[in-house]
């Protein structure tokens, strides 16, 4: 589950002793001057544009079969050729990307919300509430991510709804852990003590004072979590447990293409490459954000 950890690093000694560094933040970088973040945002924007404007980019219907025109090589008509049912591979790639991205972006929302709420409660109140929530977290992380996702989707029955449920049931634990850890530190800060002595309610302190100050860590993690969710969706599709056919999905495309690997390698290669590029864009954004949120750390 902890696919991405951003361990803290001590800055090199010379950095600390520099006079201007001691005076305050070295320099505040705007997001567009951060090369990793800028590159990631541009890349993601291109991918999202390709997914959203899929109907404009390809005149083919991704589901329409043409059994007289199967397994064609790339040509001017079919940029990436056609698959075993004569469907345009480029169109299926765009629509598959569209479906998988939509599912991944929706799937990340509920775990994020549940994890932040439970993590805040756990960290702020401590005691038996904390013990119970953290024990549940321990139990969920005892299972390998893929094993639990595959098992849950199997028992719930293949399809989008099951994917959302499975990812929600498993995904919240990472957010809860991260937020709990941050709140444990933040709740001892002066501004929280001030709010407490001012008589504000616990809910208000958490919602208005604590969570806004620690939420950035959860957002950072969400970047790698979306990547993990896309991988899970594609893996489920590869095993025939994802979106049912004929709806285009990158995982099932890779599975279909595998049978024609020696003669039509493009059927398998490009859907996978699309996933890699999506992962790259989100990782770049995550790294760039980390650099802005926590300057001085790699």
């Amino acid at each position, binding site marked *: *589950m*902890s*696919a*991405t*950890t951003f*361990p*803290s*690093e*001590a800055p*090199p*000694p010379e950095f600390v002793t520099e006079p201007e560094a001691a005076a305050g933040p070295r320099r505040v970088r705007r997001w567009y001057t951060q090369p990793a973040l800028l590159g990631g945002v541009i890349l993601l924007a291109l991918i999202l544009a390709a997914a959203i404007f899929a109907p404009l980019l390809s005149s083919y219907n991704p589901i329409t079969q043409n059994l007289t025109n199967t397994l064609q090589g790339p040509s001017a008509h079919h940029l990436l050729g056609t698959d075993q049912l004569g469907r345009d591979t480029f169109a299926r790639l765009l629509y598959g990307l569209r479906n998988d991205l939509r599912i991944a972006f929706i799937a990340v929302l509920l775990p994020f919300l549940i994890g932040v709420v439970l993590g805040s409660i756990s960290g702020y109140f401590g005691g038996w509430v904390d013990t119970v929530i953290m*024990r*549940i977290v*321990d*139990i*969920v*992380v*005892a*299972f*390998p*991510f*893929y*094993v*639990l996702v*595959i*098992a*849950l989707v*199997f*028992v*719930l*029955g293949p399809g989008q709804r099951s994917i959302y449920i499975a990812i929600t049931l498993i995904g919240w634990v990472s957010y809860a852990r991260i937020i709990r850890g941050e709140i444990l530190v933040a709740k001892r800060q002066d501004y929280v003590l001030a709010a407490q002595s001012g008589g504000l309610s616990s809910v208000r302190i958490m919602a208005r004072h604590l969570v806004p100050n620690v939420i950035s860590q959860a957002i950072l993690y969400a970047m*790698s979590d979306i*990547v993990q969710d*896309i*991988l899970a969706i*594609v*893996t489920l599709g*590869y*095993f*025939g*447990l994802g979106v049912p056919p004929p709806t285009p999905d990158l995982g099932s495309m*890779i599975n279909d293409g595998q049978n024609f*690997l*020696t003669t039509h*390698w493009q059927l*398998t*290669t490009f*859907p*996978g490459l699309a*996933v*890699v*590029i*999506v*992962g*790259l864009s*989100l*990782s*770049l954004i995550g*790294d760039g954000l980390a650099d802005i949120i926590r300057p001085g750390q*790699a």
Partner: protein
Amino acid sequence: MTFVFQRLLMLIPVAIGVTIIVFFMIHLIPGDPARTILGIHATPKTVAILHKQWGLDRPLISQYWLFMDRLAHGNLGQSLYYSTPAAGLIVDRIPATLWLVVYAAILAIAISVPMAMIAASRKDAIRDHIVRAVPLVGLGMPPFWLAILLIYVFAINVHWFPTSGYGVGIVGHLHSMFLPALVVAIALSPVVIRSLRASMLNVLGAEYITTAKSKGVAGPALFFRHVLRNAVIPAVTVLGINIGFLIGGTVVIENVFAIPGIGQLMINSIFQRDFPVVQGVTLVFGALVVLVNLLADLSYAALDPRVRFDR
């Protein structure tokens, strides 16, 4: 010893929780679980047999008790497809999975330690940036896709490795499972490289390194005797934390390479709608992760005396 004892004590709630989750899998099945699982094979008789086997007509707590009672006797239920005990099917397939996990862990260390050393040896140099770019690409790579490409290149085009299988004998295993283990190792390495690089940089900034430097220790001696030794401990922890990821990766990879491990059994059983086996495999995977985590924690304590004194 108290650390070991405390750690073992913490194991109990997690172990019970794991069995509860696996037990509840039955109740997540929409509709009548027996009818859904049997599908077209559902006759009043077969449904009644499953109801009796799972105790579905009893209260929940009594069902769980039945489940635990059978579990204590090593009974994971009867495979619906093979009509043999599920436990036997699973036990037969554990060796292949363990081979893959250990092989992949060794390859992951063989890949990650040198890469992290190269990156940490000079922070922010070009080589550091190159190593740091690797995880960005690696994190989003579907492992099964990489596996298919490697099969295409190294097994079909140049016949260096077989396309699938487990091999015969130790040399055969090492040869046949190289590509599968490599894929799992590559999938794991981004996380390990990242953490290792950070911990090596941390070690480089530590006071005992300054001391060693001021005593005149330099170059390779400093790196191998002082830095690497202390950075290996976090490597073990990172592997331990990600053991779930490592073991989970084998499910996917075993199926691409047709390795007769429990991951392949799981996916096959899903296609055969063999619920007891899927349930049993899930439990075994959970137990495996809990066990390996325990071993990682204990070896961590053995490697680093500070852990024991902290407690």
